[in-house]
């Protein structure tokens, strides 16, 4: 079952929705504005009635896998249950109805919420201040690097390099580069952890920061993190924490204590704000006191029980987005934190680690496990063992889809060939983990007996494997004028 595009369902004569009339005596735009400011060709938008629109989107929704119906073990993405109470909280008119330019004294509840959330996040990661402005993880990374840069500059120190492990997420080097740094890669050792020797060799007074995530993208805790921190700090560089993996150890240890100076968090991972099919998220950044002067403005301050937006921060790197961040996501995260409490967050991380290790154990002998355990909240397996059958990580992923599971992250991190990165999270039951392991076993079995059948999966989904290469080729044809089909959008067929 597939669904036509709204543009294809569109009916020429369909009535527009009823809308209020102006009810005032005033000229209409066409009466006043000159022709050349007016639109010449009306936009070719679909024309559909509400019943058709609702069915259209309902049918599309049913084509998705989502955590609401499927186990969604995407490594590095922390696809845990999104509490429905969060949604109810963010929808409260007392939040959703606030205009960002209302006066401070009319938004004390909103400011208090943000202030409390900042305090809670400080407690979880062990930092002094947090900005809630960044809209996502990558945005937070870049915000933090800009602060680190501003810090060094404020000391007359023009550092030009940022170190990034080879196992890092792509946003890390990109964020560093977009802050004007040169990116230097640090290699992982054979145990999957950062090589201290390589790090040593790359550290220099040119280095502004080392970006790390811990546990790293292999799900392994960087045992020598304290040595790393000492080495980095000894050269005057700062240590940056990519908080995508924070779900591994809330209440167990804290990046701030490990020596990290700046930390971004993904509220859309660790703190259950929903992914929304690709955002919106929120990527707050926590910093130690020495970086605090450089925080984006405004910060939220409290004095005498009154909350204010502080714009008078002379060393601030400035704004990183309009207004105060993705406020609606902040409400959700705060609601979650209230419900979980310190005890709940701690147990959540413990359970996440337990689940990952349990599932990892079930996968032993089924897929390759290139690194030794225990892992933290996720682990990376490899489909390398299926190479003789011509079966790849992608095939395993598609086989899982066929068996009613979403697929793990595949081909990341880049340091593992045929990587299959599994993050079960704490909100999946043992029964689900067992069923998932069963599906993996079934797939491996099938790889051995009938690899061709596996290559043809998924069969029962709305579509089978799509010709992604063909799509890219067609786009090139369009961009180079060899085809009229824009591929990236619907366009009314020429008559």
């Amino acid at each position: 079952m597939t669904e036509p595009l709204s543009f294809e369902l569109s009916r020429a004569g369909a009535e527009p929705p009823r809308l209020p009339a102006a009810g005032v005596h005033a000229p209409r735009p066409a009466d006043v504005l000159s022709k050349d400011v007016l639109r010449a060709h009306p936009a070719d938008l679909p024309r559909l009635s509400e019943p058709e629109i609702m069915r259209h989107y309902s049918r599309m929704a049913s084509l998705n896998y989502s955590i609401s119906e499927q186990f969604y073990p995407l490594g590095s993405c922390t696809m845990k249950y999104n509490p429905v109470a969060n949604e109810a909280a963010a929808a409260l008119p007392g939040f959703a109805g606030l205009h960002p330019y209302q006066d401070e004294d009319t938004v004390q509840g909103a400011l208090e919420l943000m202030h409390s959330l900042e305090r809670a996040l400080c407690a979880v990661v062990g930092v002094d201040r947090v900005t809630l402005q960044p809209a996502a993880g990558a945005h937070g990374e870049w915000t933090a690097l800009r602060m680190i840069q501003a810090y060094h500059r404020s000391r007359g120190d023009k550092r030009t390099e940022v170190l990034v492990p080879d196992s890092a997420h792509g946003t890390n080097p990109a964020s560093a580069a977009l802050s004007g740094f040169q990116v230097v890669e640090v290699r992982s050792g054979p145990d999957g952890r950062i090589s201290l020797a390589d790090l040593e060799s790359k550290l220099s007074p040119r280095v502004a920061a080392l970006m790390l995530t811990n546990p790293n993208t292999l799900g392994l805790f960087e045992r020598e993190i304290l040595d790393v921190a000492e080495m980095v700090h000894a050269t005057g560089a700062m240590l940056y924490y990519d908080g995508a993996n924070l779900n591994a150890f809330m209440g167990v240890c804290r990046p701030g204590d490990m020596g990290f100076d700046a930390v971004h968090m993904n509220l859309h991972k660790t703190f259950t704000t929903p992914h929304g099919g690709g955002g919106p998220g929120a990527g707050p950044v926590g910093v130690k006191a020495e970086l605090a002067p450089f925080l984006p403005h405004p910060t939220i301050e409290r004095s005498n029980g009154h909350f204010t937006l502080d714009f008078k921060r002379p060393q601030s790197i400035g704004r990183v987005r309009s207004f105060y961040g993705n406020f609606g996501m902040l409400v959700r995260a705060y609601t979650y934190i209230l419900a979980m409490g310190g005890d709940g967050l701690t147990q959540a991380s413990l359970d996440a680690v337990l689940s990952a290790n349990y599932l990892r154990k079930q996968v032993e002998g089924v897929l390759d496990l290139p690194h030794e355990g225990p892992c933290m909240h996720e682990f990376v397996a490899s489909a390398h063992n299926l190479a003789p059958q011509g079966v790849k990580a992608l095939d395993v992923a598609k086989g899982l889809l066929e068996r009613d599971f979403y697929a793990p992250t595949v081909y990341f991190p880049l340091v593992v060939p045929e990587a299959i990165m599994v993050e079960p999270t704490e909100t999946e039951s043992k029964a689900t983990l067992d069923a998932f392991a069963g599906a993996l076993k079934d797939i491996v079995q099938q790889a051995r007996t009938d690899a061709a059948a596996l290559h043809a999966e998924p069969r029962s989904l709305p579509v089978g494997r799509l010709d992604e290469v063909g799509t890219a080729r067609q786009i090139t044809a369009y961009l180079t004028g060899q085809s009229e089909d824009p591929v990236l959008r619907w366009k009314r067929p020429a008559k």
Partner: protein
Amino acid sequence: MPYLVHSPQEREEMLAAIGVESMDQLLVDIPSSLRIHDLKLPRGLSEFETMAAVRDLAAANRVFADRLTFRGGGVYKRFIPTAVAAVTGKPEFYTAYTPYQPEASQGTLQAIYEFQSLIAELTAMDVANASLYDGATAVAEAAMMARVHTGRDEILVAGYVHPEYVEVLRTFSEGRGMKVKKGDQPTNKTAAVVFQQPDFLGLLVDAKGLTERAHSVGALAIASVDPISLAILAPPGEYGADIAVGEGQQLGLAASYGGPHVGFIACTKDLVRRLPGRLIGSSHDAQGRRGFVLTLTAREQHIRREKATSNICTNHSLCALAAAVYMTYMGEAGMRQVAEVSFQRAHALAERLAALPGWEMAFPERQFLNEFPIIAPKAKPLLRKLAKKGILGGLEVGRWFRELKGVLTFTCTEVNDPAAIDALLEALSA
């Protein structure tokens, strides 16, 4: 504990299956000096108590009725069809991740493909992406496209572009090798001219003239546009802009104290490979069934890493979905209707305000749509007086622009019914 699943007994079973005796054995890699055993946070609450606490915070805010909100400045109260939340509230949409596995993500992929198509149609540009964080970062990302495309480093900001967008642009340009200048005279160092239509004050700018001037020196023209205005005004594609960006909040998103909203970006063919963020394209499977996929991913940071020209990963998909539902619900005729009603009401309001003693239009010779700057006597106490009557009056733009001290911008949309306008005037005269 809420949202946790394992029972104590299952935890034991799982530990046993792993072959360890306690959680500590799984946490051996953590240096003991780092190990903590709790967080300095209160214990968790029941859902009942949690919601009570959150409701108390919500109640500590003052929400102005939509119809009595005459303040805009980039975020507007508009009619939001119930259909929007009914769609975005579907867990199949809101609890999915970025659609990495297309076979199991056709709902999201098709919806965003439709969003791209709708934005491309609305702006009259060739291609639009899957969304950006907001209007401000959209301007900044567009500037970066121009920087890379032209190899030039100067970004010229013409006229009253939203001051927060300019601030963000400045923060972005550090490190990206861009210099932000104000002015409307591009030179051969100019990578792009950025302008906003209507501008931050609500006034119409000479978009066509600015575009031509940019092109005449080999620079790109970046138009930051109000999507609703495009039902009436010439869209960027019609006057030849290279990149159209904007804030999509008005397309069905709640004000929500400033976010989450959605940035959009669209461009000409030439620039497609420089677009930041996700792009969804149409494809097909071996049986010939159409499907949609993330495409041109080679542009993105997870492939290009330090060579990427944008780091955006998680974007604002669900907000884009909301915008798609909104645009589909309204259609071209619906969007035109709300744009026209807003125009008419704002003009009626402007006339009445300008007739008040001591008030005068700040730029009487300039045209506007549904937001306009007006000089008001004693703006501050006046706004306080309005607030007492439940009215959120105009925005003091002098906060950002010294030359505009005493100027308020007022906005009207289809939610400000004539009686609400009367109430405003009455409150002002009282």
